[in-house]
Structure formats: structure tokens, C-alpha cells
């Protein structure tokens, strides 16, 4: 907020408070839009019309849903732990908003600085640390509900979060080696110059691992065992209704947006365009703000849509398969990725990218031949 700070000339805590207010108010319509888009997109995937009743082409559907949830009775079960039951949605929702403190939504161009609340030197570390807090909310909600299905959901949520946070954090470590900084702004600046410098090309393995882990982090299909409808009714939020359920629902979509934003910053070059930016745009402050914010939101939106696409495609994993996948596959893969990145970083970024892509290619060829062989063997028997 360098430019705004110099323009308004307010003390830093006040600027931070204004930014927090803007983020909180701005995320509500974004979450409503994501809910609507998810329903429309899932409808398209299954050849249904999706919401089409409220407002023109169903565009007001989420507003109607929100009003319904707000006016519903806010019910607390008889033997619930009232304090924890009240606190759980808050603890669940706050971390998803906190993440945006270090998310640069765009840039004012030149020396005016990026559009963000705080450029922490430990930006990525802050994000990951804060983001894992909502697990506490899940366990709290499950425990306080005094319902065995909710408790099971909460316990599953914690087990899943512990398993998937490890590969998620490790997938960032290769990036930190390449960029040499933990600040979100520095990481984006390290990817400047065009598409070929974005880190998802230099770290393809880490990018794929992050995509899988981020879906697990926000408890979405296929990693939604904490709220598996067919097994646990609705998991940790079974007993919640009305406003408090709306908070869980809102937090889920804000988290989805947050994970996509993190992926955009770390792997897809944040606010940068995929080609060298023309001087006409970089010269004008306001023009570059809209240009950069547009690219940022476009990338985030693409990643969110990818998550919805996956939701429309894959079935839910079993709890033990989930643990297997995290501990026996993702963790070794990111460790090898980190090791290879560390070795190759000595010879420069291109060597890293080339080495990792070569490894992916070799793996695909190997897997293809083995799979074909296994198929042939099955035919013989």
C-alpha cells in the first residue's frame, strides 16, 4: 500500500485496519459469486441448467440462500458445549480471511509498490501457519456438538490436515530455494519477465503436489472426509444451522479463494502478465493497477474453476487411502523434489526446470510401459 499510504498519510495500524475491513467486505460478494459459479459449472458438467429461478438467469440465487440462512433459527443442541460451539465458526472463518493480509492483489506500477496490507518478510510462512489454524475450528466444532458423527468428522479433519500440511509446506521449499525469499512480493518479482519464468514450469512436481494438498486443505471433494455426507451426515458442521452454518459455508469458499491465491502467487506469477508488459501500461499507475489485478484475479479464477472441475469428476477417497496417499506418496515425492531442486539450484534455474521436466517425462514413459505390460499380463491369464 505504498502509494495509498503516501496519498492518505495515515499511521500504519490504521491503514492495516482499513485494509482488513476492505478484505472482509470484499470477500463476501466474492464468496457468493464463487458459490453461484460452482453451482452453474457443476450443472454444466452434468448437463443440468443449474440455478435458474431467482433473478435473471438465477444470478440472485446465493443472495436468496444467504437471506434464508440468516433468518433461520440458530439452534444449539441441548448438551453441547456452548462456549466452544459459539467459538468454533469464528475460529474456522478468521484464518481464511487472515491469509489475505499478505496476498498482493495487484501492483501500482514502477516504484509505487504492490497492493497489499503487509509485505511480511516471512509472507509464505505466515500464510501456511495461519491457514492451518482453521483445523482447530473443525475439531472444536466436532467436539462441542456432542454428536458422535460430528466428532468423527472433526477427528478426521485434524488427521487430514496434519497429513496434508507437510507435503504442502514442502512443496514451497523448492520455490524458496529458487526465489531466495519468503516474502510474497519478492517471490512474484522473481518470476518477472514472462511466462517462461513462472515457477510452475521450474517446479512442476511441487505445483501438482500443491494442487492436491490445497484441495485437501479446504476439505473439498475428493478429500472431503471431514464432512462426508454419505458417512457422517455432514461431519463437523452437522449440528450447525442458520448464521453459524453460513459462517462455515462462507469460510469454505473464502479458503478456496485463498488457496488459489497462494498458488497464483507462488507458482503462477501473481499479478504478472504471461508476456513482457508494454511500457504504456506499466507507466500509468491506475492503468497498471487494473491490469495487474485483472491478471491476478483471472489466474485465481482459473484455479478455482479447476478445483470445481475436479469436484465434479472424482469420487471421495476412503480415510485410509487418504492417509496412504499423503504419507506414502506425496511426502516422499516432495522430499525428492526438494533434494533434486537443491542439487540443481547450484547450476541455475533452467537446469532445475529441465531436470524436473525430464524426471516427469521419464516417469510417464516408465509408467506407461509398466501399465501396458501389466495389462498384457492380465489378458494372458
Amino acid at each position, binding site marked *: 500500500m505504498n502509494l495509498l499510504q503516501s496519498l492518505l498519510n495515515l499511521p500504519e495500524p490504521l491503514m492495516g485496519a482499513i485494509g482488513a475491513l476492505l478484505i472482509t467486505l470484499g470477500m463476501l460478494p466474492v464468496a457468493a459469486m464463487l458459490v453461484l459459479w460452482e453451482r452453474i459449472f457443476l*450443472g*454444466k*458438467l*452434468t*448437463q*443440468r*441448467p443449474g440455478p*435458474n429461478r431467482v433473478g435473471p438467469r438465477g444470478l440472485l440465487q446465493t443472495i436468496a440462500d444467504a437471506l434464508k440462512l440468516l433468518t433461520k433459527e440458530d439452534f444449539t443442541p441441548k448438551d453441547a458445549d456452548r462456549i466452544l460451539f459459539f467459538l468454533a465458526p469464528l475460529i474456522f472463518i478468521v484464518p481464511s480471511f487472515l491469509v489475505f493480509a499478505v496476498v498482493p492483489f495487484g501492483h501500482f506500477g514502477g516504484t509505487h509498490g504492490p497492493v497489499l496490507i503487509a509485505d511480511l518478510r516471512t509472507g509464505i510462512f505466515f500464510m501456511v501457519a495461519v491457514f492451518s489454524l482453521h483445523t482447530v475450528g473443525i475439531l472444536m466444532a466436532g467436539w462441542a456438538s456432542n454428536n458422535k458423527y460430528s466428532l468423527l468428522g472433526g477427528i478426521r479433519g485434524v488427521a487430514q490436515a496434519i497429513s496434508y500440511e507437510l507435503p504442502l509446506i514442502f512443496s514451497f521449499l523448492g520455490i524458496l530455494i529458487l526465489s531466495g525469499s519468503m516474502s510474497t512480493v519478492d517471490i512474484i518479482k522473481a518470476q518477472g519477465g514472462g511466462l517462461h519464468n513462472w515457477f510452475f514450469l521450474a517446479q512442476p512436481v511441487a505445483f501438482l503436489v500443491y494442487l492436491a494438498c490445497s484441495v485437501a486443505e479446504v476439505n473439498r471433494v475428493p478429500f472431503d472426509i471431514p464432512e462426508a455426507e454419505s458417512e457422517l451426515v455432514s461431519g463437523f458442521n452437522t449440528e450447525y444451522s442458520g448464521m453459524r452454518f453460513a459462517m462455515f459455508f462462507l469460510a469454505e469458499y473464502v479458503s478456496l479463494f485463498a488457496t488459489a491465491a497462494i498458488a497464483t502467487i507462488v507458482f503462477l506469477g501473481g499479478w504478472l502478465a504471461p508476456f513482457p508488459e508494454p511500457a504504456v501500461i506499466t507507466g500509468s499507475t491506475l492503468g497498471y493497477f487494473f491490469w495487474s489485478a485483472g491478471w491476478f484475479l483471472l489466474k485465481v479464477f482459473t484455479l478455482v474453476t479447476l478445483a470445481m*472441475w*475436479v469436484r*465434479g*469428476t*472424482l469420487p471421495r477417497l476412503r480415510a485410509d487411502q487418504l492417509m496412504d496417499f499423503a504419507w*506414502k*506418496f506425496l511426502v516422499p515425492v516432495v522430499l525428492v523434489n526438494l533434494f533434486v531442486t537443491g542439487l540443481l539450484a547450484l547450476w541455475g534455474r533452467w537446469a532445475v526446470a529441465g531436470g524436473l521436466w525430464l524426471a516427469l517425462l521419464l*516417469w*510417464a514413459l*516408465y*509408467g*506407461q510401459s*509398466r*501399465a501396458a505390460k*501389466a495389462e498384457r499380463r492380465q489378458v494372458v491369464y
Partner: protein
Amino acid sequence: MDVLTRAFQGAKAIAEGLATTFKHVTRSQVTIGYPEVRSELPAAFRGMPGLPPDKSGNTTCIGCLACARVCPPQCIFITTSKGEDRKLRIDDFIVDANLCIMCGLCEEVCPVTSKEDKTDYPGRAIQLTHLYEMSAYCHEDLVFHLPQLIAIGQEFGRQKSKDLPGQPRTACYSRLAVHVKELTRG
């Protein structure tokens, strides 16, 4: 089967799945938005039974009670009386739609036929019509008497000889359902 091969197969399966679901985005939707859009009914659609009238507007029923006897839920009640010309007159013909299961046995067993009608059961006195919107506020509203059954047969019945089996025919008709309901109340 080692880890790398399994991982490859998993990745391949996910990619194939994503491709499959994406294919469906490009296809046209299968949902028909019912109250606004109505699907085409097959000619042999079995809806509410009705009594299609002849040219003078009377029922062609001869009062043999075959349909009342064969009806599995026993929802047809016919009262007849002998007129002065010693012919049976249909005093009332009741189909209780609360009970009717729309099996079509009444239509099958009906001895009345017509030569110019080329449908499966040509010119039956009682026919299953294309009326399927029969919501009502009480059970009494769903007990249909002779004039209402004639109206149903008139408005919703298969049109003789024009409507060959297998040809789809658009059902209309909430406007007409309202009409039938008004008759029922009266």
C-alpha cells in the same frame, strides 16, 4: 505393481476423468424445465382415463360393465337404466382418480371399436388420455363423473386416425386441467 506405476495409472485416470466430464460441458443439457417447457409424450402414453365422445357429444359406452369388472383397484362405477327404446342408458360413469393406477386394462377390455381409428385400441369407449396434471385440494375433486370424463376424453384423448402409435404428441395443458377442475367443482 510398484509405486511409480500406480502413481502413473492414477494420474492417467484423473486426466481421463477430467476429459470425460469436460466433454459434457459442451453437450446440450438434458433437463426440461417442466412448468415452462413440456416434453413430448409418446402416443401410447397412459394418463387419466377419459370417455372420448362421438360426434353428437355423447359417450359411446354401451354399459356392459366389463371395465368396472376388470379394474384392479375397482375405481370405475357405472350406473345404467333401461330407456323406453329398451336400450341401456348411462346414468353416471365414475372414475375415482384417487384409486386409478392407469394400467389401461379398462381400455383393453372395452368391446366398443371403430374402423377408422388406427390406434392400438381403436375407438374404445374408455381411453387413457394424455392428462397427467391432476393436483387437487381434496379427494372429492378427484372423483370424476360422466360430463367431466367426456370433457377429459374430448380435450386430452388420442385423436382418432390422425395420431398413429409411436408418433409423439405434445401434451399441453394446464389451462385445460383447470377447465376440468372447474367442471368437477360445478
